[in-house]
């Protein structure tokens, strides 16, 4: 960067400032001399928001159009009675589709399963992730190897994992039952995804396997941020290892927990691929979730408005999870 260019840029910067804020020779701003009245227009023109337009406007427009525009349009469609391959009628909007939802047995089943999946999957993934993180953090050998092994499943596509889990769950030849029988636990061997009572749990188990590695990484970062002094102080005070983690370390992981929870929950809402690959768009009431129902209603039945209503319910659920997180972050000044 030649000095002449630098000088030119500095000149440009000066010119963009309001006249009353010309730089003083010592590098500061000559604000004391702002005696002349400033017009509101020029105040607005020189405000941060306007000056920063090139930075926030393009992404805002793109996001606004492609994300929020689509969400809004989905909401609008859910108020129509659009079905079939014609065009939607926007003249008579009503909440009819939402009124139908509670009476629909498929919706009730899908909603219930979605909530179970959400809670169980998130809870178990966090617990396993925390335990793994603590173990990996305790200066074990081959730490990096273990970390990679635990994280690796997350890199796999659902299409792949769904297919090999359905092989492993096979009641006669699948690994799981073969192992159970091998160690004498024949009573536990079961038709995991064939039996409606275990189907959803089998899905949750597989998803947990795939995602607890993610929780581990988040927790590991949290653990690394805790100063060694805290461990040492706890030890000096005579705390047992268990007590040290329980009373000193884990309470400091709340920020990590919150961010992991949000990501895992939003993820659970979208666990569409896994179920779709295993069972198609009709997994039965024991494993149906809202995301699958939305696809089935919209694309197999062309009931666009009803599908859009299901999508809105999903959106509201996601919002209910993310909004408190954003609010807490905002209060902390992290946003």
């Amino acid at each position: 960067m030649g000095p002449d260019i630098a000088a030119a840029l500095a000149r440009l910067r000066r010119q963009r400032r309001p006249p009353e804020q010309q730089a003083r020779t010592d590098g500061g701003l000559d604000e004391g001399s702002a005696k002349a009245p400033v017009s509101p227009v020029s105040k607005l023109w020189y405000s941060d928001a306007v000056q920063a337009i090139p930075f926030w406007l393009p992404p805002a427009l793109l996001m606004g159009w492609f994300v929020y525009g689509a969400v809004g349009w989905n909401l609008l469609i859910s108020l129509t009675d659009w079905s079939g391959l014609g065009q939607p009628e926007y003249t008579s909007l009503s909440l009819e589709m939402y009124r139908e939802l509670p009476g629909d047995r498929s919706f009730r089943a899908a909603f219930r399963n979605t909530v179970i999946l959400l809670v169980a999957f998130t809870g178990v993934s966090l617990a396993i992730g925390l335990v793994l993180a603590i173990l990996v953090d305790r200066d074990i050998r081959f730490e990096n190897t273990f970390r990679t092994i635990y994280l690796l499943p997350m890199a796999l596509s659902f299409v792949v994992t769904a297919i090999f889990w359905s092989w492993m769950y096979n009641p006669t030849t699948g690994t799981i039952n073969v192992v159970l029988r091998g160690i004498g636990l024949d009573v536990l061997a079961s038709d995991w995804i064939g039996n409606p009572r275990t189907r959803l749990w089998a899905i949750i188990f597989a998803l947990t396997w795939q995602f607890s590695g993610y929780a581990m990484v988040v927790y590991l970062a949290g653990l690394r941020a805790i100063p060694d002094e805290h461990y040492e102080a706890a030890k000096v005070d005579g705390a047992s290892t268990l007590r040290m983690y329980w009373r000193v370390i884990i309470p400091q992981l709340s920020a990590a927990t919150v961010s992991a929870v949000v990501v895992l929950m939003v993820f659970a809402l979208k666990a569409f691929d896994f179920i779709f690959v295993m069972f198609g768009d009709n997994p039965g009431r024991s494993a149906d979730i809202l995301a699958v129902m939305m696809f089935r209603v919209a694309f197999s039945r062309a009931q666009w408005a009803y599908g859009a209503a299901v999508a809105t319910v999903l959106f509201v659920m996601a919002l209910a999870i993310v909004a408190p997180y954003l609010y807490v972050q905002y209060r902390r000044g992290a946003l």
Partner: protein
Amino acid sequence: MVDTRTLTRRRYVLTTATLGSLALAGCTDDEDGDDDDGAGGDGDLEIVHWWTAGGEEEALTALLDGFGEEHPEIEIENNPEPGGAGAAIDAAIQTRVIDQDPPSTFQIWPGEALRPYTDADALEDVSHVYDEDAEDAYLESVLDAASPEGEVVSVPINIHRLNNVFYNVEAVDDAGIDVDDIDSPEDLLDAFAAADDAGYTGLAQQTQEPWGVLQLWEVVFTGQHGVDAFESFLAGETADLEDEIHESLTLVEEYSEYFNEDAGSVGWDEANADVITGDAAFHHNGDWAAGQYQAEGDDFEYGEDWDYIAFPGTDDVYTMVMDSFVMPSNNPTPDATEAFLTYCTSVDAQERFNPLKGSIPPRTDVPTDEFPDFSQDQMDDFEASSEQTVSIAHGSGLNPEQSSEVEETFAVFTDNWDPDETTQELIDIF
């Protein structure tokens, strides 16, 4: 410091602008792309289909080669939307039809699957692509399926038969079963029991996806109560058929005792593999299941190692599972599409396509030499059949909305095996 910051901002603006324009270009590209595909030099014939696996893909290639020989001037844009039996194609085609940007032609089941398109006036009348010979050579029931609203809107290119029971000859002999004595769906249950006693799986079946049990129920119903009753069901007169529906569901529930243990965790091909290995005696499916036996080559011969009977009670019935091509309205290439559909009605097209697909031609005047023995027998059965009907599980029987609801009912049935509740739910759909 100041300079670096300015530079960074500048770069930021530049990057944002570049990314933004790229993103915009990406979007417009997409739209343009579709237009290009269609309008780009009036010759590009865009064909959307879901034939991407093994024999299916070979069959389509053979069809397109034949068409290319006849119309070398037409450029073909082969645009597969893979996904089991059209799971993905619906979403793609429906949105394009709504946007009035359809492909030149696309694959669809004839019959009620066409209904949403005819309701929206999205398909052109194609009756003129059938010449006189073709019209004579197509059976009336096939043309009926191609014309849900009275005018012919699709060109069926192949027919699979759904009402077959395949069996492993050795297993069936070993269990002392004489297939000629199996005259009714109830007799078949006894045969399953006999196979089970001899240590075989009675019926190799998949219940992981609901269509497997749905199609089984369809043929059981037809076998017990006849084609007329089945067609009344399709017409929605379910309330009068309560007892019949219940009876068939009960029998299917009894069949389920003899399914392979892993029926809930396998696809149909994995289930069918049990017949090849000799672990299972029987398999019910469309004749695409025979493709799997034929792929075994000399180790598994038709007539010696495996054989089939029409599903008991449906000897002179041909339950058809068909594919067809259509001419969407707002067609980007009307002339090329018409040429392609005309070609699809021809003997040449159907003779190239069907032997590889493992189906039989809808035209009854196609020479049989090119076909494997099994298909030749199916063609004889087809010509000899006195009644033809269609299937719900394969799209032609009910409109997509009703089919999907029936499928959902069967997804619940394979969980609870409760004929009472399922009967009621089936009645409530209509």
